[in-house]
Protein backbone atom coordinates (compact mmCIF):
# COMPACT_ATOMS: atom_id res chain seq x y z
CA UNK A 1 0.00 0.00 0.00
CA UNK A 2 1.16 3.51 -0.75
CA UNK A 3 2.05 5.65 2.21
CA UNK A 4 2.62 8.85 0.22
CA UNK A 5 1.05 11.78 2.04
CA UNK A 6 -1.60 13.67 0.06
CA UNK A 7 -0.09 15.89 -2.64
CA UNK A 8 3.53 15.15 -1.74
CA UNK A 9 5.84 15.14 -4.71
CA UNK A 10 6.40 11.60 -5.87
CA UNK A 11 9.65 10.06 -4.64
CA UNK A 12 12.43 8.50 -6.67
CA UNK A 13 13.24 9.37 -10.27
CA UNK A 14 10.30 11.82 -10.54
CA UNK A 15 11.89 14.20 -8.05
CA UNK A 16 15.03 14.30 -10.14
CA UNK A 17 13.02 15.18 -13.23
CA UNK A 18 11.47 18.15 -11.43
CA UNK A 19 14.72 19.41 -9.97
CA UNK A 20 15.87 22.86 -11.15
CA UNK A 21 19.25 21.74 -12.50
CA UNK A 22 19.46 20.97 -16.23
CA UNK A 23 17.55 17.81 -17.06
CA UNK A 24 19.35 14.93 -18.78
CA UNK A 25 17.49 15.90 -21.97
CA UNK A 26 19.43 19.17 -22.08
CA UNK A 27 22.75 17.34 -22.40
CA UNK A 28 22.51 16.19 -26.03
CA UNK A 29 22.06 19.82 -27.15
CA UNK A 30 25.15 21.07 -25.30
CA UNK A 31 27.05 17.97 -26.45
CA UNK A 32 26.15 18.74 -30.06
CA UNK A 33 27.30 22.36 -29.69
CA UNK A 34 30.57 21.22 -28.09
CA UNK A 35 31.10 18.72 -30.92
CA UNK A 36 30.49 21.40 -33.56
CA UNK A 37 32.89 23.81 -31.80
CA UNK A 38 35.54 21.07 -31.59
CA UNK A 39 35.09 20.20 -35.26
CA UNK A 40 35.39 23.87 -36.29
CA UNK A 41 38.50 24.34 -34.13
CA UNK A 42 40.16 21.26 -35.62
CA UNK A 43 39.45 22.39 -39.19
CA UNK A 44 40.72 25.93 -38.43
CA UNK A 45 43.87 24.57 -36.82
CA UNK A 46 44.53 22.24 -39.78
CA UNK A 47 44.04 25.08 -42.22
CA UNK A 48 46.37 27.37 -40.23
CA UNK A 49 49.10 24.72 -40.13
CA UNK A 50 48.77 24.19 -43.89
CA UNK A 51 49.01 27.92 -44.54
CA UNK A 52 51.99 28.49 -42.23
CA UNK A 53 53.86 25.38 -43.33
CA UNK A 54 55.87 27.33 -45.89
CA UNK A 55 55.96 30.55 -43.87
CA UNK A 56 53.64 33.60 -43.80
CA UNK A 57 52.34 34.80 -47.20
CA UNK A 58 54.44 37.64 -48.46
CA UNK A 59 52.35 39.13 -51.26
CA UNK A 60 48.80 40.50 -51.30
CA UNK A 61 47.75 37.96 -53.92
CA UNK A 62 48.97 35.13 -51.61
CA UNK A 63 46.99 36.68 -48.72
CA UNK A 64 43.88 36.87 -50.94
CA UNK A 65 44.34 33.18 -51.77
CA UNK A 66 44.60 32.32 -48.05
CA UNK A 67 41.40 34.27 -47.25
CA UNK A 68 39.52 32.70 -50.16
CA UNK A 69 40.61 29.23 -48.99
CA UNK A 70 39.44 30.00 -45.44
CA UNK A 71 36.00 31.09 -46.73
CA UNK A 72 35.75 27.98 -48.93
CA UNK A 73 36.41 25.76 -45.89
CA UNK A 74 34.13 27.70 -43.54
CA UNK A 75 31.01 27.78 -45.75
CA UNK A 76 30.32 23.99 -45.94
CA UNK A 77 31.28 23.64 -42.29
CA UNK A 78 28.78 26.38 -41.32
CA UNK A 79 26.01 24.88 -43.48
CA UNK A 80 26.55 21.45 -41.96
CA UNK A 81 26.52 22.84 -38.40
CA UNK A 82 23.34 24.82 -39.02
CA UNK A 83 21.62 21.76 -40.48
CA UNK A 84 22.61 19.62 -37.51
CA UNK A 85 21.41 22.24 -35.02
CA UNK A 86 18.11 22.62 -36.88
CA UNK A 87 17.56 18.86 -36.98
CA UNK A 88 18.30 18.70 -33.28
CA UNK A 89 15.84 21.56 -32.57
CA UNK A 90 13.13 19.80 -34.63
CA UNK A 91 13.66 16.61 -32.65
CA UNK A 92 13.42 18.55 -29.38
CA UNK A 93 10.15 20.26 -30.36
CA UNK A 94 8.68 16.92 -31.44
CA UNK A 95 9.71 15.53 -28.05
CA UNK A 96 8.07 18.47 -26.25
CA UNK A 97 4.81 17.99 -28.17
CA UNK A 98 4.85 14.26 -27.39
CA UNK A 99 5.43 14.98 -23.69
CA UNK A 100 2.54 17.49 -23.63
CA UNK A 101 0.18 15.00 -25.27
CA UNK A 102 1.21 12.21 -22.91
CA UNK A 103 0.82 14.55 -19.91
CA UNK A 104 -2.73 15.45 -20.88
CA UNK A 105 -3.66 11.82 -21.42
CA UNK A 106 -2.33 10.89 -17.99
CA UNK A 107 -4.16 13.81 -16.35
CA UNK A 108 -7.48 13.10 -18.03
CA UNK A 109 -7.58 9.33 -17.73
CA UNK A 110 -5.57 8.66 -14.58
CA UNK A 111 -6.10 11.70 -12.38
CA UNK A 112 -9.62 12.81 -13.31
CA UNK A 113 -11.83 10.21 -15.00
CA UNK A 114 -10.76 7.37 -12.70
CA UNK A 115 -11.53 9.08 -9.35
CA UNK A 116 -14.71 10.71 -10.72
CA UNK A 117 -15.99 7.34 -11.98
CA UNK A 118 -15.63 6.08 -8.42
CA UNK A 119 -17.81 8.94 -7.15
CA UNK A 120 -20.43 8.14 -9.82
CA UNK A 121 -20.55 4.58 -8.50
CA UNK A 122 -20.91 5.84 -4.93
CA UNK A 123 -23.86 8.04 -5.94
CA UNK A 124 -25.78 4.94 -7.03
CA UNK A 125 -24.73 3.00 -3.94
CA UNK A 126 -25.95 5.72 -1.56
CA UNK A 127 -28.39 4.37 1.03
CA UNK A 128 -30.44 7.53 1.57
CA UNK A 129 -31.70 10.39 -0.56
CA UNK A 130 -29.75 12.86 1.59
CA UNK A 131 -26.49 10.98 1.02
CA UNK A 132 -27.22 10.70 -2.71
CA UNK A 133 -27.97 14.43 -2.91
CA UNK A 134 -24.74 15.26 -1.14
CA UNK A 135 -22.69 13.02 -3.42
CA UNK A 136 -24.37 14.52 -6.50
CA UNK A 137 -23.50 18.02 -5.31
CA UNK A 138 -19.92 16.84 -4.84
CA UNK A 139 -19.91 15.26 -8.31
CA UNK A 140 -21.13 18.47 -10.00
CA UNK A 141 -18.35 20.43 -8.31
CA UNK A 142 -15.68 17.84 -9.26
CA UNK A 143 -16.79 17.93 -12.89
CA UNK A 144 -16.55 21.73 -13.21
CA UNK A 145 -13.19 21.75 -11.41
CA UNK A 146 -11.90 19.11 -13.81
CA UNK A 147 -13.28 20.88 -16.89
CA UNK A 148 -11.76 24.23 -15.92
CA UNK A 149 -8.39 22.68 -15.12
CA UNK A 150 -8.14 20.39 -18.14
CA UNK A 151 -9.52 22.63 -20.91
CA UNK A 152 -8.12 25.87 -22.25
CA UNK A 153 -5.69 28.11 -20.46
CA UNK A 154 -5.36 29.24 -16.88
CA UNK A 155 -8.30 31.64 -17.14
CA UNK A 156 -10.91 29.11 -18.16
CA UNK A 157 -14.23 28.95 -16.29
CA UNK A 158 -16.50 25.91 -16.21
CA UNK A 159 -20.18 25.93 -15.28
CA UNK A 160 -22.83 23.27 -14.98
CA UNK A 161 -26.28 24.65 -15.78
CA UNK A 162 -28.81 22.25 -14.30
CA UNK A 163 -32.13 21.72 -16.04
CA UNK A 164 -35.05 22.03 -13.68
CA UNK A 165 -38.65 22.81 -14.59
CA UNK A 166 -37.80 23.82 -18.16
CA UNK A 167 -35.10 26.30 -17.04
CA UNK A 168 -31.35 26.00 -16.66
CA UNK A 169 -29.36 27.85 -14.02
CA UNK A 170 -25.82 27.46 -12.66
CA UNK A 171 -25.60 24.62 -10.14
CA UNK A 172 -21.78 24.44 -9.94
CA UNK A 173 -18.98 26.59 -11.32
CA UNK A 174 -15.20 26.92 -11.06
CA UNK A 175 -12.56 29.27 -12.46
CA UNK A 176 -12.26 32.98 -13.06
CA UNK A 177 -14.95 35.49 -12.16
CA UNK A 178 -18.03 35.42 -10.00
CA UNK A 179 -21.04 33.18 -9.87
CA UNK A 180 -22.64 32.91 -13.34
CA UNK A 181 -26.00 34.69 -13.23
CA UNK A 182 -27.41 33.52 -16.56
CA UNK A 183 -30.73 31.65 -16.44
CA UNK A 184 -31.77 29.95 -19.69
CA UNK A 185 -35.52 29.88 -20.18
CA UNK A 186 -37.97 29.11 -22.97
CA UNK A 187 -39.53 32.57 -22.75
CA UNK A 188 -40.17 34.02 -26.25
CA UNK A 189 -37.79 36.95 -25.64
CA UNK A 190 -35.01 34.67 -24.36
CA UNK A 191 -33.49 33.59 -27.69
CA UNK A 192 -30.26 32.45 -26.01
CA UNK A 193 -32.23 30.38 -23.53
CA UNK A 194 -34.20 28.68 -26.30
CA UNK A 195 -30.99 27.87 -28.20
CA UNK A 196 -29.31 26.42 -25.10
CA UNK A 197 -32.36 24.31 -24.27
CA UNK A 198 -32.47 23.04 -27.87
CA UNK A 199 -28.80 22.03 -27.62
CA UNK A 200 -29.66 19.96 -24.55
CA UNK A 201 -32.80 18.50 -26.11
CA UNK A 202 -30.88 17.37 -29.21
CA UNK A 203 -27.95 16.07 -27.12
CA UNK A 204 -25.53 18.30 -29.02
CA UNK A 205 -22.31 20.12 -28.35
CA UNK A 206 -21.10 23.50 -29.59
CA UNK A 207 -17.49 24.71 -29.83
CA UNK A 208 -16.98 28.38 -30.74
CA UNK A 209 -13.41 29.57 -31.41
CA UNK A 210 -14.16 33.29 -31.38
CA UNK A 211 -17.55 34.80 -30.61
CA UNK A 212 -16.51 38.08 -32.28
CA UNK A 213 -15.09 36.62 -35.48
CA UNK A 214 -17.47 33.76 -36.27
CA UNK A 215 -20.97 33.97 -37.62
CA UNK A 216 -22.94 32.24 -34.88
CA UNK A 217 -26.42 30.77 -35.01
CA UNK A 218 -29.07 33.12 -33.60
CA UNK A 219 -29.19 32.73 -29.86
CA UNK A 220 -25.62 31.47 -29.54
CA UNK A 221 -24.16 34.98 -29.33
CA UNK A 222 -22.81 36.07 -25.93
CA UNK A 223 -24.85 38.49 -23.87
CA UNK A 224 -23.63 42.13 -23.88
CA UNK A 225 -20.67 42.61 -21.56
CA UNK A 226 -19.71 38.92 -21.55
CA UNK A 227 -16.05 38.35 -20.67
CA UNK A 228 -15.44 35.32 -22.89
CA UNK A 229 -14.27 34.99 -26.50
CA UNK A 230 -14.36 31.20 -26.91
CA UNK A 231 -16.44 28.46 -25.34
CA UNK A 232 -17.60 24.85 -25.46
CA UNK A 233 -21.09 23.82 -24.38
CA UNK A 234 -22.13 20.18 -24.12
CA UNK A 235 -25.52 18.63 -23.32
CA UNK A 236 -25.63 16.60 -20.12
CA UNK A 237 -28.00 13.66 -20.40
CA UNK A 238 -28.36 9.95 -19.81
CA UNK A 239 -30.38 7.96 -22.33
CA UNK A 240 -33.55 10.06 -22.80
CA UNK A 241 -33.23 12.01 -19.57
CA UNK A 242 -32.01 15.57 -20.11
CA UNK A 243 -30.10 16.96 -17.16
CA UNK A 244 -28.52 20.25 -18.23
CA UNK A 245 -25.52 21.77 -19.96
CA UNK A 246 -21.82 21.78 -19.14
CA UNK A 247 -19.90 24.81 -20.43
CA UNK A 248 -16.33 26.03 -20.35
CA UNK A 249 -15.31 29.47 -21.58
CA UNK A 250 -12.16 31.58 -21.80
CA UNK A 251 -11.41 35.27 -22.40
CA UNK A 252 -9.01 34.41 -25.24
CA UNK A 253 -10.12 33.37 -28.75
CA UNK A 254 -9.13 29.86 -29.90
CA UNK A 255 -8.58 28.73 -26.31
CA UNK A 256 -10.02 25.26 -26.96
CA UNK A 257 -9.31 22.50 -29.46
CA UNK A 258 -10.87 19.15 -30.33
CA UNK A 259 -9.07 17.44 -27.48
CA UNK A 260 -10.78 19.83 -25.06
CA UNK A 261 -14.09 19.10 -26.75
CA UNK A 262 -13.61 15.37 -26.23
CA UNK A 263 -12.65 15.94 -22.58
CA UNK A 264 -15.86 17.97 -22.15
CA UNK A 265 -17.94 15.23 -23.79
CA UNK A 266 -16.48 12.66 -21.41
CA UNK A 267 -17.05 14.93 -18.39
CA UNK A 268 -20.66 15.57 -19.44
CA UNK A 269 -21.37 11.87 -19.80
CA UNK A 270 -19.79 11.08 -16.42
CA UNK A 271 -21.96 13.78 -14.88
CA UNK A 272 -25.04 12.43 -16.64
CA UNK A 273 -24.30 8.92 -15.37
CA UNK A 274 -24.10 10.25 -11.81
CA UNK A 275 -27.18 12.48 -11.94
CA UNK A 276 -29.61 10.12 -13.65
CA UNK A 277 -32.27 8.51 -11.48
CA UNK A 278 -32.77 4.77 -11.34
CA UNK A 279 -36.00 3.68 -13.04
Amino acid at each position, binding site marked *: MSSTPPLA*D*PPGPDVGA*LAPEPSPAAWPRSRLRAYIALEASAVALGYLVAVLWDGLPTTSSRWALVVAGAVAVAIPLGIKSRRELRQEADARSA*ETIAIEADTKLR*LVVGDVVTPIAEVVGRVHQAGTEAERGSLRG*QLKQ*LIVEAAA*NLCGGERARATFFELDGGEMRAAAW*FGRGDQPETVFTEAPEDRRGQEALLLVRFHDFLLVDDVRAEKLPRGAEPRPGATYRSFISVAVFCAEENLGMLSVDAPEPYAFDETDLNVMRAMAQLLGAGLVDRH
Partner: protein
Amino acid sequence: MIRGQVVPDEARAWTAGLVLASDYFAWARRRAVSKASAAIRTRMDRRRVRSEDPGTSR
Protein backbone atom coordinates in the same frame (compact mmCIF):
# COMPACT_ATOMS: atom_id res chain seq x y z
CA MET B 1 6.48 -4.92 -12.17
CA ILE B 2 4.20 -2.08 -11.18
CA ARG B 3 1.61 -2.32 -8.45
CA GLY B 4 -0.44 0.50 -7.00
CA GLN B 5 -3.87 1.84 -6.12
CA VAL B 6 -6.48 2.25 -8.86
CA VAL B 7 -7.66 5.45 -7.17
CA PRO B 8 -4.68 6.91 -5.29
CA ASP B 9 -4.95 8.63 -1.90
CA GLU B 10 -4.30 12.02 -3.48
CA ALA B 11 -7.25 11.65 -5.88
CA ARG B 12 -9.48 10.44 -3.03
CA ALA B 13 -8.48 13.51 -1.02
CA TRP B 14 -9.66 15.69 -3.94
CA THR B 15 -12.94 13.86 -4.54
CA ALA B 16 -13.67 13.95 -0.81
CA GLY B 17 -13.09 17.71 -0.71
CA LEU B 18 -10.07 17.46 1.58
CA VAL B 19 -7.76 19.37 -0.77
CA LEU B 20 -8.41 22.31 -3.09
CA ALA B 21 -8.82 21.57 -6.78
CA SER B 22 -6.01 24.03 -7.59
CA ASP B 23 -3.61 22.17 -5.27
CA TYR B 24 -4.66 18.78 -6.59
CA PHE B 25 -4.30 19.77 -10.24
CA ALA B 26 -0.95 21.47 -9.62
CA TRP B 27 0.33 18.27 -8.03
CA ALA B 28 -1.23 16.02 -10.68
CA ARG B 29 0.20 18.15 -13.50
CA ARG B 30 3.71 18.09 -12.00
CA ARG B 31 3.56 14.34 -11.61
CA ALA B 32 2.08 13.80 -15.09
CA VAL B 33 4.77 15.97 -16.75
CA SER B 34 7.49 14.12 -14.90
CA LYS B 35 6.14 10.67 -15.78
CA ALA B 36 5.37 11.67 -19.38
CA SER B 37 8.93 13.01 -19.87
CA ALA B 38 10.40 9.79 -18.55
CA ALA B 39 8.07 7.65 -20.67
CA ILE B 40 8.69 9.56 -23.91
CA ARG B 41 12.47 9.52 -23.42
CA THR B 42 12.38 5.80 -22.70
CA ARG B 43 10.36 5.23 -25.88
CA MET B 44 12.75 7.40 -27.91
CA ASP B 45 15.78 5.59 -26.50
CA ARG B 46 14.23 2.20 -27.30
CA ARG B 47 13.46 3.34 -30.84
CA ARG B 48 17.04 4.63 -31.24
CA VAL B 49 18.48 1.33 -30.03
CA ARG B 50 16.18 -0.62 -32.38
CA SER B 51 17.16 1.52 -35.38
CA GLU B 52 20.87 1.17 -34.56
CA ASP B 53 20.56 -2.61 -34.23
CA PRO B 54 21.22 -4.05 -37.70
CA GLY B 55 19.21 -7.15 -36.82
CA THR B 56 15.98 -5.20 -36.37
CA SER B 57 16.35 -2.11 -38.52
CA ARG B 58 14.65 -2.04 -41.90
